[in-house]
């Protein structure tokens, strides 16, 4: 009897031993796969289309005059960068966005915080702001031009208006939805009003605020194009118009690519700056 049981035991431990040793390796492989292959999967379509279009134009099946192939766009991009044109226009646009974003965020933060914190202020100003929000911001352009002229002030104001609304809404909503139970913890520990804001409200509101900053910045980029399309002598939007009027589609696409790069980079800066304060959000519940 006993040898038989021994062999069974040996067999069973042997058969169990292999998979349990193999499993972690498989799991790390799977993790590596999901870490690299999932984003790569998303790239398959655009890269595939670009390669296909390049191929079609190279084969002479299409002229590619109105829709330049990737190689031409890249060459135009490099050319613009080499002459310093691209940098100059990008910096001008970036400056407008920075100014408009700064003003819009400052106003939205002060007014949004007041409206979120005080029901009286909210009742007083929120209906008006909601009414203004219903107006497409571009509709203000003629008025801004009449008031502020056709140069920087009207452009920056338009961007600031675009940035204002998402930040205002996000901040006010976040303050209103702060967990009363956590506020009560603050009360139980006898926090002063200032401490309550600093130790409870601010950290509680921060995730939603950062999110609203990001969507505000997105709108800022949208409105800077609108402003520059309507009349500018510099800026990436000017590059777009210039490409249209001189019939240079590659320049237009190059400007669009520059928009994408700078837009993504600025968004990434916000994420990066906020990351140390939001690390608590990333952890997963253990059980």
């Amino acid at each position, binding site marked *: 009897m006993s040898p038989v049981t021994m062999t069974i035991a040996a067999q069973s431990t042997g058969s169990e031993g292999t998979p349990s040793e193999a499993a972690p390796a498989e799991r790390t492989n799977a993790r590596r796969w999901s870490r690299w292959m999932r984003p790569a999967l998303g790239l398959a379509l655009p890269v595939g289309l670009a390669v296909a279009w390049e191929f079609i134009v190279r084969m002479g099946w299409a002229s590619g005059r109105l829709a330049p192939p990737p190689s031409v766009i890249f060459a135009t991009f490099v050319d613009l960068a080499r002459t310093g044109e691209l940098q100059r226009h990008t910096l001008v646009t970036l400056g407008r966005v920075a100014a408009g974003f700064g003003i819009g965020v400052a106003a939205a933060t002060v007014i949004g915080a007041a409206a979120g914190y005080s029901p009286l202020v909210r009742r007083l100003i929120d209906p008006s702001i909601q009414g203004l929000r219903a107006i497409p911001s571009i509709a203000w352009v003629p008025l801004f031009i009449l008031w502020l002229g056709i140069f920087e002030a009207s452009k920056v104001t338009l961007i600031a208006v675009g940035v204002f609304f998402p930040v205002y809404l996000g901040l006010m909503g976040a303050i209103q939805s702060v967990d009363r139970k956590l506020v009560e913890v603050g009360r*139980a520990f*006898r926090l002063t009003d200032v401490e309550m804001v600093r130790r409870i409200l601010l950290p509680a509101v921060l995730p939603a605020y950062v999110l609203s900053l990001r969507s505000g910045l997105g709108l800022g980029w949208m409105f800077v194009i609108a402003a520059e399309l309507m009349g500018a002598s510099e800026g990436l939007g000017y590059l777009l118009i210039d490409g249209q009027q001189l019939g240079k589609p590659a320049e237009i696409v190059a400007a669009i690519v520059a928009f994408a790069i700078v837009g993504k980079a600025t968004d990434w800066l916000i994420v990066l700056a906020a990351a140390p304060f939001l690390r608590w959000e990333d952890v*997963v*519940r253990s059980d």
Partner: protein
Amino acid sequence: MLALERVGKTYPNGVHALGGVSLNVALGEIVAVIGGSGSGKSTLLRAIGGLDPPSDGAVVLDGERITAPHEKIGIIFQEPRLLPWLKVADNVGFGLGGRPRAERAARVATALKRVGLTDKAAMWPRELSGGQAQRVAIARALVPRPEVLLLDEPFSALDAFTRADLQDHLLDLWADAKPTLILVTHDVDESIVLADRVVVLCPRPGRIFDEIDVDLPRPRDRQSAAFDFVKRRVLVALDRSLNRAAGAAEAEPKATAGAALWW
């Protein structure tokens, strides 16, 4: 000493939650407040803690009238209510805001050791289990060394095993500095395991219906006959408190049948 002098509470919406509760609690005493729903147990606790001051009567601690949260009074809520953006250690030290850094660190370390969570100090609250989180909440309330600790159904959200574990643990912690404990619960076993005195409230509006002294030696054996005897007394009082309430018809018939059996 903590004295409740005809503490009553009528909310602005007209709900009469508490109808004059008078109670004296000695320093270091453990009092469990138990009662059916609508008996104003939580309202009473919030009045003592100064979170919702009473509309009639007064809460007096050591001769001082309590109308707002007080440094001598700590509160533990039903949920841990840890601040999710603070590490466990910073949550425990939350009430030590004004103290020097070194003192704060030392007291937090002692408290975490006492609740057995030293290894979790650098974790985020979201990474804790429910029982661990409530232990952190207990440590946070105890760190400022309150004279009175209020507990609002602190273990009701936990599973039975964790609950019994934490009840024993709470007594253990209480023995360190022996603060006054006032515990609101709807768990009869819990009230008898922990309390020197069980106060039974009756509903609509909340009043004291009965007080039952529990003079069993600690640690208390939940299975002993003496424990069972006290438990029956509390259950009967609880049962009668519900029957005497305005809506006698609302009292569950099952409970009435139970009472008939016990006597």
